[in-house]
C-alpha cells in the first residue's frame, strides 16, 4: 500500500491520497493523463498488466480500489 | 384530486398565456392604423342594422363614405376595405360581414381581380385585424391556395407574430394605445386630403385583357359562392379612375360577372365618368383615387343609384341609428378643413 501511495504522490504531489475522501475519477481529481501515468508506473512496480478493460471509474476512484484491482490481477496470473 | 388540480392549473396557465399573446399581438401587429380602425368600427356596430356593405381595397374606402351617404340619404352603409385586399380573400371578408349584419346588398369592388401586381404582405392589414374564428383560418387557407404559398411558409399567415415580432425595435407610444373605431368607417387619412392639381383626361377602352389564372380562379370561386347566397344581392363595381392601367382587365372581369347574371356597374365605360361632374384637379388625390371632395360626389351619385336599385330605406330618426348623427359630425370635424364642398353642402 505504501508503495502505491508513493507512486501516486510522485505523479500528483498536490493531492493528499492518504486521507482522501472524494472519488478521484468521478469528481474529476485525476485526468486521463494522470491515469495513463499511474497505470504505467503500476504495471512496472507490481508486475501486472492493467488493460483497457479494467479502466473503469470504480477501479480508480480511490487508492484502495486501485490496490484491489492490483491484487485481483496478481491472483489471476 | 391532484390530477384535477394539475389540469385546472394547466388550463389557467395557458389562458394567462393566451391573454398575454393577444396583448403582445395587438402591440406588435401592423402599425397601419386605418385598417384596424375599420375593423374595430365594423365589430362595434350594432347587429343587423346595415343595408349595404362595401368590400374591396382603396377603391372602396377612398370613394365611398358611409358618413356622407347617411347625411344625404339616411342610408345605412358600412365598409370592410383594406389596402390591396387580395381578390382571393374577398369571399371570406363577405362571410365575415354576414356574421353580424344582414344587408340587402353587398357591393364588391372588382379591382382586386383586375390588379395583377401582387403584394402578398398586405394581406396582413386584413388578416391581423380580423377576429379569430374559423373563417379567419379559411381565409388563410384560401389565400395560400390562390397565391401558391406552401408548406412552412403558410405559418406566417396563420401566426402573424412570426412576421411582426421583429417590430419590437420600432415600437412607439402609438403602438401601446388602443385604436379607436373609425367614424362610420369613413376615411380621413392624411393623403385623402391631397389634391392632384393637374387635369387628366378620363381614358376609356373597349379592350379585354386577361387577369391571370389565379385571379380568374379566385373570381370564379367568389362568384360560385355568391350564387348560393339567397338573402342578399351582390353588385360588382368598378369605380371611376383617370388611369388606363387596369381598364382592360376591369372589362374582362365585368364580362365574367355578367355571365354569372350579377349586376356590374363600370364607371369607366364610355359616357359614365361624366355623370359625376368631377373637377379632376380638385376632386382626385391621384390618378387612381378620388380625394375627400371627389368621394363626396361619388357617394352622392352612386348612393342615389343604389337606393333606387335596391329600394334602401331612409333610416334618419330611427332609434338604432341614434348615434349616427353624432358620428357623422365627428367625421366632419376631422375633414371640414380640407373639404371644399362643405359650404355648398350646408346651403342645400
Amino acid at each position, binding site marked *: 500500500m505504501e508503495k502505491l501511495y508513493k507512486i501516486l504522490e510522485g505523479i500528483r504531489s498536490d493531492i493528499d491520497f492518504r486521507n482522501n475522501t472524494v472519488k478521484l475519477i468521478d469528481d474529476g481529481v485525476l485526468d486521463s493523463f494522470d491515469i495513463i501515468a499511474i497505470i504505467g508506473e503500476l504495471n512496472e512496480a507490481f508486475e501486472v498488466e492493467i488493460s483497457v478493460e479494467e479502466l473503469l471509474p470504480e477501479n480508480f476512484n480511490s487508492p484502495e480500489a486501485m490496490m484491489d484491482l492490483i491484487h485481483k490481477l496478481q491472483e489471476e496470473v | 384530486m391532484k390530477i384535477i388540480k394539475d389540469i385546472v392549473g394547466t388550463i389557467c396557465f395557458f389562458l394567462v398565456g393566451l391573454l398575454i399573446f393577444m396583448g403582445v399581438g395587438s402591440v406588435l401587429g401592423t402599425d397601419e392604423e386605418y385598417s384596424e380602425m375599420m375593423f374595430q368600427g365594423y365589430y362595434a356596430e350594432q347587429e343587423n342594422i346595415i343595408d349595404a356593405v362595401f368590400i374591396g381595397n382603396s377603391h372602396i374606402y377612398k370613394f365611398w363614405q358611409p358618413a356622407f351617404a347617411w347625411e344625404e340619404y339616411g342610408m345605412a352603409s358600412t365598409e370592410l376595405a383594406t389596402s390591396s385586399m387580395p381578390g382571393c380573400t374577398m369571399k371570406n371578408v363577405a362571410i365575415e360581414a354576414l356574421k353580424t349584419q344582414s344587408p340587402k346588398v353587398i357591393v364588391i369592388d372588382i379591382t382586386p381581380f383586375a390588379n395583377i401586381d401582387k403584394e402578398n404582405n398586405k394581406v396582413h392589414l386584413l388578416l391581423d385585424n380580423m377576429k379569430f374564428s374559423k373563417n379567419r383560418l379559411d381565409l388563410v387557407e384560401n389565400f395560400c391556395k390562390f397565391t401558391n404559398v406552401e408548406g412552412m411558409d403558410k405559418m406566417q399567415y396563420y401566426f402573424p407574430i*412570426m412576421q411582426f415580432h421583429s417590430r419590437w425595435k420600432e415600437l412607439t407610444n402609438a403602438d401601446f394605445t388602443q385604436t379607436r373605431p373609425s367614424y362610420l368607417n369613413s376615411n380621413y387619412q392624411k393623403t385623402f386630403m391631397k389634391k392632384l392639381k393637374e387635369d387628366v383626361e378620363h381614358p376609356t377602352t373597349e379592350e379585354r385583357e386577361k387577369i391571370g389564372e389565379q385571379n380568374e380562379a379566385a373570381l370564379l370561386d367568389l362568384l360560385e359562392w355568391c350564387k348560393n347566397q339567397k338573402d342578399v344581392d351582390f353588385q360588382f363595381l368598378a369605380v371611376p379612375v383617370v388611369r388606363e392601367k387596369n381598364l382592360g382587365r376591369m372589362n374582362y372581369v365585368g364580362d365574367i360577372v355578367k355571365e354569372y347574371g350579377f349586376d356590374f356597374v363600370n364607371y369607366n365605360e364610355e359616357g359614365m365618368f361624366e355623370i359625376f361632374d368631377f373637377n379632376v384637379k380638385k376632386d382626385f388625390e391621384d390618378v387612381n383615387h378620388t380625394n375627400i371632395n371627389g368621394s363626396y360626389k361619388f357617394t352622392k351619385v352612386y348612393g342615389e343609384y343604389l337606393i333606387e336599385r335596391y329600394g334602401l330605406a331612409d333610416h334618419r330618426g330611427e332609434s338604432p341609428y341614434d348615434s349616427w348623427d353624432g358620428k357623422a359630425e365627428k367625421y366632419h370635424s376631422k375633414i371640414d378643413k380640407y373639404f371644399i364642398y362643405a359650404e355648398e353642402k350646408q346651403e342645400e
Partner: protein
Amino acid sequence: MAAVCAVYFIVPIKCRWAVLLAASYLFYWWNSAYLAFVLAGMTAITWLIGLWLERKNQKSAEYIKLHKEEMDASARKSYKLSVTKRKKWILFLGILLDLGVLLFFKYYNFFLENTSPLLAYLGIDPDAFKLDLLLPLGISFYTLQAIAYMVDMYRGKYKADHHFFKFALFMSFFPQIVQGPIARHNALAEQLQTGHAFDFTRLKYGCQLILWGFMKKLILADRIGILSDTVFGSYKDYGGMVLLFSVILYGLQVYGDFSGGMDIARGVSQIFGIELELNFRQPYFAKSIEEFWRRWHITLGAWMRDYIFYPLSLSKRFGALGRGARKIFGNYIGKKLPSFLAMFIVYFLVGFWHGSSWKYVAYGIWNGVIITAGILLEPVYQKGLALFRVKEKSYGWSLFQMFRTFLLCSVGRFFPRAASCTAAIVMMKQVCLSPQPWQLVDGTLLTLGLDGKDMAVLFGMVVLVLLVDIAHERGIRIRETVASQGLVCRWLVYWTAFYLIVIFGIYGPAYSSAAFIYQQF
C-alpha cells in the same frame, strides 16, 4: 411532438418503446427519406456483431470452466489469447463496416479532392468520380454510438441487446440523433426500453428545459449568426479587432446553438422519462483548454478517451515508445510522450470528425498544440506565480485562467468558421498585424448586421446565460429553485421566457414597417 407524447402515454407501458421507435424512424424518414435505410443497415450490422462477440465471450468462459482441471495457467493464457485474437477480427470487421459507411458518405469527396493530383497522374479524371452525396442525418453521431457498443461487447462490459427493434431504438432515438449526446448502450438503452408512467412534474421540467434551449438558440445564437455571416463572409474588409470580437461572439454562438440544442433534446427526452447524458458543463469556466474539452461536448470527449486515447496509450507499442523515449529525452518528457502522441491523434480525429475539410483538422491540431504547450509550460507558470507571489488558488488567478482559456479557445474557432484554412490564417495575421482597434468604437460594429437594439438584446442574453452558468457552477438547480417560488413568480418566469423567444427570437420572415408604407392602391 405533442402527438408522439400523447400516443406514448396512451399505449400500454410495455409497448411504449415501440412508439419512440416509430416516431424516430418517422422523423428520420421525414428528414432524409431513403437514408433511413443506411441507419437501419448500420443498426443491423452492429446488432449482429454485438451478438457474435457476446457468444464468443460466453463460449470461452464456458470452455475454461469445463476444462478447469486440465488447464494450467499458461494453457489458459494461450487459449484466452487465441479467443481474443478471433474477437479482434470480428470487432475489426464491425468497425470496418460501420466506419466505412461514415467515411463513404462524409469523406468520399474529400479523399477524392486530396488525391486528385495522384489520380490525374494515373490518367484518371477525379471529377468523373465525384458523387453528389447527401449526408445521412446524424451519421457522425450514431456511428460513434455503434462503435462504442461493439467495443464494449468485445471488452465484455455488459450484455448484448438481443431484441433487434429495441436495439434499433437505441441507435435512432429522435431527440438525440441529430446532434447527440453520444450515448452508451448501458446508460441509455434500459431507459428507452422500459415504459415510463406519465409524470406532470417531469413534463413541466422538460418543457422548461426546451424553452431555455430555444432561448439560447433563437435569441443568442441565431442573432450572432447574422453578425458572423457578415463578418466572415467578407473578412478582408475588417480590422483585426473586429475579427477578434466576431470570433469571440462566434464562440458564444456555437455554445448557444449546440448547448441549446442539447437542452431541447434533453427536455424532450425528459418528458418521456428518459435522462440523456449531460453534454455541456459550463465550458467557458474551464481553466485550461484540456478542461474545456472535458466540459464541452462531454460525450464526444468521453468517447475519444475511452475508445481512442486509453487503448492507444496503453497499447504495447506506445509503452515501448515511452520506454525508448525516456532513454533519449529523460524521464519527464519520456513519460509524457506516449500520452501526448495519443492526445494528438485524438484531437486530429476530433477535428476531422467535425467535418471533411482541412480546416477542421487544423482546428483539432490547434487544440492539441495549446494543451501540449500548457502542460509543458506548467513549470514556467509555477515559477512565474512564485515570482509575483500570486496565490494559485486565488480568485483573480482563476479568473485570469478562465479568460485565457476562453480567448485561446475563441481564437481557435477561426479555423472552423473560416471558409478555408488559408482564410483562417489570414484572419489570425490580421488580428496581430492590423488590429485597427478604433473600429471597435467608431460605429463599425453596428454595421455588421445588428443594430444598437439588437446588440443590447444580445448583451442582455449573454449576461443571462452567464448568470445561469454561474448558478449551475455553484450547484444551484434553477428549475427546482423556480418551482419552489409562489405561483405568480413561477408563471411570470415561464411566460417571460416564452415571450422573450417570441419577440426577440430570430425566426420567420423579417418584417419592417417600410414594407408596409401606405401605397396608393
